[in-house]
């Protein structure tokens, strides 16, 4: 495996009072979404030179799981109260919260499993916990790069970068990149793709 291309050091916006010596992921975790937009986090730093999605993706998944758990709890309470069964209410609420916790842990592991490396001639993307997939796409095979950001991703300043080849099965999606990192990756991939483009 070739060494990853050198990258610029992380830019940290110091307007937020956070101690960079501490793993600020912890300190920022429970701050508001507004705060997390201000922080410029480094996406590199995984083991083995893998770049990982932003920790904000982890937080976004937290919120998603929390929101759906909340909805499920409200539904469970509404149904069981309508049936007038107090014990059932308690059991349902505990069950839903337990499921939500497990889902949260699974979502966190899945976020941590994502990773990508820009190598000299190709992009390497890995993902998955149960089903682990690693995908190599030569830059020359790339047809176009797609950057998408849903409303919640946008609120967190995140974007998803996806590389498309002529093969439908190619699976190179990198979610949860900070918007400027996504833009950088898009431009980088596009220019590399132009240099080494080849026909079918």
């Amino acid at each position, binding site marked *: 495996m070739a060494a990853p291309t050198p990258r610029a050091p992380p830019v940290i916006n110091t307007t937020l009072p956070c101690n960079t010596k501490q793993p600020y992921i912890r300190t920022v975790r429970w701050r508001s979404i507004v705060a997390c937009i201000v922080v410029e986090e480094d996406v590199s730093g995984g083991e083995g030179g893998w770049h990982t999605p932003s920790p904000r993706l982890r937080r976004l998944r937290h919120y998603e799981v929390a929101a759906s758990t909340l909805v499920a709890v409200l539904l469970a309470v509404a149904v069981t109260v309508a049936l007038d069964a107090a014990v059932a209410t308690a059991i349902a609420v505990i069950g839903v919260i337990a499921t939500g916790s497990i889902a949260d842990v699974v979502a966190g592991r899945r976020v941590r499993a994502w990773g990508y490396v820009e190598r000299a001639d190709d992009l390497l993307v890995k993902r998955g916990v149960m089903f682990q997939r690693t995908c*190599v796409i030569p830059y020359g095979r790339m047809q176009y790069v797609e950057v998408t950001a849903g409303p919640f991703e946008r609120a967190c300043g995140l974007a998803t970068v996806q590389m498309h080849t002529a*093969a*439908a099965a190619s699976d*190179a999606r990198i979610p949860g990149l900070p918007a400027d990192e996504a833009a950088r990756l898009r431009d980088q991939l596009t220019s590399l793709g132009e240099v080494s483009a080849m026909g079918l």
Partner: protein
Amino acid sequence: MSDPGAPEPPAGLSSAQSRAVAGLEGDWQRLHPLSPLVRAGRGAVAIVALLLIPTGGSRQGALSSDLAHIAVLVVVFVLGVITWLVTRWRVEGGVLRVDSGLIRRTSERFPLSQIQAIDTVRPGLARVFGVAELRIRLASGSGKAGRLAYLSNAEAETLRARLLALSHGMAEATPAPPEQTLVTVAPARLFASILLSGSGLVLELVIVVLVVLAVVAPAIEAAAISAGAAGLFGLAITLFRRFNGDYKLVVADASDGLHLRSGLVETSAETIPMGRIQAIRMIEPLAWRAFGWCRLEVDVASQKSRGRQDRNQSKAARALLPVGSRDQAAFLLARVFQDLPQERVAPPARARWKSPLRFRYLSGATNERYAVTTSGRLQRVTDWVPLAKVQSIRLLEGPIQRRLQLSSIHLDTAGRRVHAVLRDRDRTEARKLFGELPDRCRHARQR
């Protein structure tokens, strides 16, 4: 239409041929006047069939519904005529231009230098009227195809030959390159093979059940037929389409690629450039094993069909050999791919736990230029993929595979049906291969 100042076409050409020549010289040309009829043909046949089939029960209101059908037919026909009136083509400055549309005008341009192949397709009705459709395939990655539907046979032949000559930078009147016939398939064997194929066997089983029912319990028979009629009809259509597509298939080798001609009702002639071939697949169904038959398919690069492209375009895997012996398949394969890996290696025995049904057929090998894999549960499927055509490589490890220390490697190509999977290999070996394959693919491409 024709410009009086234009040079007269050389003598000895029929009027249709001279129309093609005029179009090549830059005069706007219309398609064949019968085009709307042939295009509406399929729908018209369906509507006529609807008119003829008695609806059963009372015929009250049948007249008005017949009138409605006829009205639909007339509207379709009028729209067809308008489409014909506004569709024109010509060659201007090395670009084939096709204008169409009344309200939403579209103007398509096909640079002659990018033309990769021109296919001729003649549906049944088109053959009755002596017209043909030209499909112009460009070499660009988009896989865009232009259609000229329909031209008269003479016009289509002239235009096809001259466009191809122009696209190769040769004089317009250069004859087509000589070709060498590689293989033909006897219709009887094709028919037998389709009867023995998976859906063929299903159809036969259903028919046998229906016959038995007719003898044993005629009361249930009518209900069973009416319930299963649509499915049965669909199945029969599918089988017929396959029979039609592969009927009298002639594969010939020429300098510009493989020439494939086939068809019973709808005939087609297409060219598959060698460089366009993404993968080759050999299928040996269980029921064919007794005869030692196999089917060889070729997968070419194509995009998902969108818009006006019809379904013939979307069937990307084309049979090179609908049915034939292993020797015939090996002969064809050697014509397309050289230096294939000979020895195939089976996965470790513990893979039996992960793929109990597939295990006996699993094997794979790679060399500097090709990857070959076999798999399949009931039928054995062998895939050959040139490493030069690989778009991306994926390493997959599922939970069971992880426990058994196994991994699969997928080699994705731009083809739509075939992609090679080195399934359930030893993990260490697979990871080593996964590390090497990108470089091997790069070297294969640079050759």
